């Protein structure tokens, strides 16, 4: 019978040299193999020994077996780890290779701006309303305190439909009337939508474009409410504190009527090329709803007050994204649209 000491010594020596799983398998077979393992042989021969010998050799042999088993297990896992490492190294990729993209579509910049506007006003309790594009004179003008042949009608270059009394709405204000015919105050609405003007196009004018109407009506709505709502909207929309300036203006459906300037968002009211060195940007028209408009919508004259405003949604988009020409908004050029 082989001595435990020589087995242990050999095992130790050989194990150190093993560098792959295959050799380790052979090693395991050599010492612990069920049939021919050297230590297995010792363990199997224990039965032939005297009790004294058995007591002396038995526990030692068992300890050696456990040690060997442990060492093999440990060696195996370390070999495996090394094996994975080398395999993974071969899988190395160039992570600067461009990403593989799913086709990406883009919302139109007007849609993005419109949603933002709707969210800001929505948080202030404004509902989104809408109305038809094709209108009669009543909604386009008469109900808005612009009677037939009134000089103020010249303020809107309207597209007329051939052979009919209908026209395309030149502003979103008709939505005020449609809404008020169906609802009673108090309410707050905005109405984003397309409007049409028969005028030559240039970098800041188009003949088919977007406007945003706003209307708040109640028992005691005043100019200071208008100022608050518009100032809050502008500040949130442009992401900075914006100041408002009201100047006298004239729109037949409001009285008093205002031209609303905002402090220049490009230079923060210091004066730059965007605001032509004035520090102010003329941005929208507003005013307190004319009682004739309330009367046309069926309200009792003098019962309510309200403010209304109208702003070019295109203009807001141009300012937000620094687009120099409004006509870009009506092109389908993917090189433009994919920027948003």
């Amino acid at each position, binding site marked *: 019978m082989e001595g435990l000491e020589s087995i242990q010594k050999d095992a130790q020596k050989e194990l150190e040299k093993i560098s792959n799983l295959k050799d380790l398998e052979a090693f395991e077979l050599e010492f612990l193999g069920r049939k021919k393992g050297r230590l297995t042989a010792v363990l199997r021969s224990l039965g032939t020994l005297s009790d004294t010998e058995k007591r002396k050799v038995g526990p030692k042999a068992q300890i050696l077996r456990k040690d060997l088993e442990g060492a093999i297990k440990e060696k195996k896992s370390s070999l495996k780890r090394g094996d994975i490492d080398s395999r993974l190294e071969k899988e190395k990729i160039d992570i600067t290779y461009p990403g593989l993209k799913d*086709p*990406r*579509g*883009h*919302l*139109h910049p*007007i*849609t993005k701006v419109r949603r933002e506007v709707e969210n800001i006003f*929505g948080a202030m*309790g*404004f*509902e*989104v*309303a*809408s109305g*038809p*594009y*094709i209108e009669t004179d009543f909604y386009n003008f008469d109900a808005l305190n612009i009677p*037939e*042949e*009134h*000089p*103020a009608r*010249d*303020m809107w270059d309207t*597209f*007329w*439909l*051939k052979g009919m009394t209908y026209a*395309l709405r030149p502003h979103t204000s008709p939505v005020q009337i449609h809404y008020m015919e169906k609802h009673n105050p*108090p*309410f*707050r609405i905005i109405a984003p939508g397309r409007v049409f003007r*028969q005028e*030559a196009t240039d970098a800041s004018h188009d*003949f088919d474009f977007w406007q945003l109407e706003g209307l708040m009506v*109640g028992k005691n709505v*005043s*100019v*200071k*409410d208008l*100022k*608050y*709502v518009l*100032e809050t909207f502008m500040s949130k929309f442009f992401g900075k504190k914006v100041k408002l300036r*009201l*100047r*006298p*203006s*004239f729109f037949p459906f409001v*009285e*008093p*009527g*205002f031209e609303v300037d905002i402090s220049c968002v490009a230079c923060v009211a210091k004066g730059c090329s965007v605001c032509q060195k004035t520090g102010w940007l003329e941005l929208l028209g507003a005013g*307190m709803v*004319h009682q004739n408009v309330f009367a046309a919508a069926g309200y009792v004259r003098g019962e309510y007050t309200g403010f209304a405003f109208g702003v070019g949604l295109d203009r807001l988009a141009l300012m937000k994204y620094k687009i120099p020409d409004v006509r870009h908004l*009506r092109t*389908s050029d*993917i090189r433009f*649209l994919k920027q948003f």
Partner: protein
Amino acid sequence: MRFSYLWLKELTTKIPPPQKVEELLTMHSFQVEGVSKAGKDHIFDIDILPNRTSDCSGHIGVAREISVLAGGNLKLPKNTIKTSKTKIADKLSLSLTSKATKRYVAGMMEGVSIKASSKKIGDRLASCGMRPINSIVDATNYLMLETGHPAHAFDYDKLEGHKIDVRPAKKGEIMETLDGQKFTLTPKDIVIADAKGPIAIAGIKGGKRCEIDNNTKTVVFEVASFDRTHIRRTSREIGLATDASIRFSRGIPSTSLDTAMMRLLALASETSGGTAAMRLLDEEHKPIKHAPVLVHLDYVNRLLGVDIKESESLDILKKLGFLVTKDRNGIYKVTPPEWRMDIVYEEDVSEEIGRVYGYDKIKPEVPHAPMTHVAEDPEHALLERIRDHFVARGFTEVQNYSFEPREGLFHEADTKGRVEIENPISEEYSHLRPSLVPGLIKNIEDNIAHIKDPRFIEVGKVFRMGSKKPQEEMHVAAVMVGHKKDDGMFFRAKGVVETFFEELGVSDVWFDDKDIELGWPMAPKSMFHPYRSAYIGSSDARIGAVYQVHPTIDLDLSIIVVELAVPELVHVVEDQIEFTDIPKYPASLRDIGILVNRDVRVDDVVRVIETAGGELLVDSDLFDYYEGDNLGPDEKSFAFHLVFQSSKKTLTDKEVSESYSNIEKAVLKEGWTIRE
């Protein structure tokens, strides 16, 4: 309109420097669009609001405004007139038969000598943008720039019958203006006529026949006030707008016409040295009475959101020339001055108080308003979901013009019922679009050079003529493009639609190609590839279509279109998503290959399989489709994964085989072949 700083300065006791004037007017009256230097003078370019033309289209009006804002007083020019013994009535007769003429005042001046105006008058006219002509015409223009009253001068000796008739034009009457243009008039127009015919189109332009020339000795002057709507209409219909017509179209006060005439006679006598005939001819229709406006100062404060003291409000009104009295109930009766034709309502008075007080002093404040229900329009919400769904699948949103040319991409037969624009911007945009599709096809063509796989979606309105009135409808169309002979794109598009309805929780959706004429606002059938088109159905409505564009429309590309009819779609959206239990027992998979005739459709085969498979067959999934080389020309082959599963137990092999063989039997019964 242009105004001279030095001229304004002459008309008020107190005027701040030009820059301050600009600021005062812009913040309290109307916008000064620009200030330019002209020698020692500054010229303001002021955008006089339409409602302020009646009082501020002359220097006196603007000087009055400055006086109020700067705390000065108006200083009116003094008139010196030499008068002769000639009585105007002996030399000239005036008749007023035009009902649209409020008042007509004629004056006469004899012994004038026509020459060039003085440097002062010439410079002032020029700096306000008017060309000096001669001393008489210049006097009329100077009057207009000073007072806002347009005036006209006729050569008395050229007046046939020495009479002036202010009357409606006769039908077809022709009028030749000073610059030689000829206009044909209608009874809706007003003319100034003598015994022979028209000598001026009232309120717009004078005629050649009675023009002032170098030999003119005796002049007849006119100042007048016409119904603004008449002047506006005539000006628009004959296509002629003048400095006079702009003022008359917006309204000119008639009370001060005699004062204006006296001023004109003084100016003419200064420039041309004549003597005025005694008296004026003055005919009037409707004397304007200014009704007082009832004003509640507490309402004014509430409307403006400020607390202006009563005394301050009254002071503002008085300075502006309003007459204010208080009635027994503490309500003010406010009578506007005759030059303010725009003050009718209490709100008009509020504006006067507010603007002079200063809108800057109104502080923004969080509104105290009751909470209200904010309703969401289901159509609006649905359109947003459609945009998001398509954009997430690579479609880019476009917004094309609502206009298109008469000849679109449609067949001639399909162009009926288009809505035509009376006054289009150009031929290219002469009709309202009846469909989104032609625009989107053009978008594809325009972009194919820049992008491999263009996909576009548009959400917008389309239009057509209804029986009585034009119709408009919100519509959705999306396009994508495949390569020639590649029909895979059709199914990609169909897949986009299918996942959309899954997202919406609409399970009751099918595709069919029977009777595919869908009607407006879908594109007409002539746009569809006859064998690659399907409509989308749900319950009893047709809610859209998926189709390849007919190759005659576009030969180079194969374009696939999805259209969705928005109003119908709103009705089928249920958002009914309900939990079903996740299977506890494993599924068994079997595959089956079936060879069928080319006419047999996937749907037909699926129906046979699912009927025969019974309740154990939970899904049948087409994973391969083949026609070609190894098959006969009329054959095609399908391969399905069949999924068998029970919610109650693990199925045995026997149970699965039984169900599977039922399917096999049913397939064979149809005369189809099972491929091994």
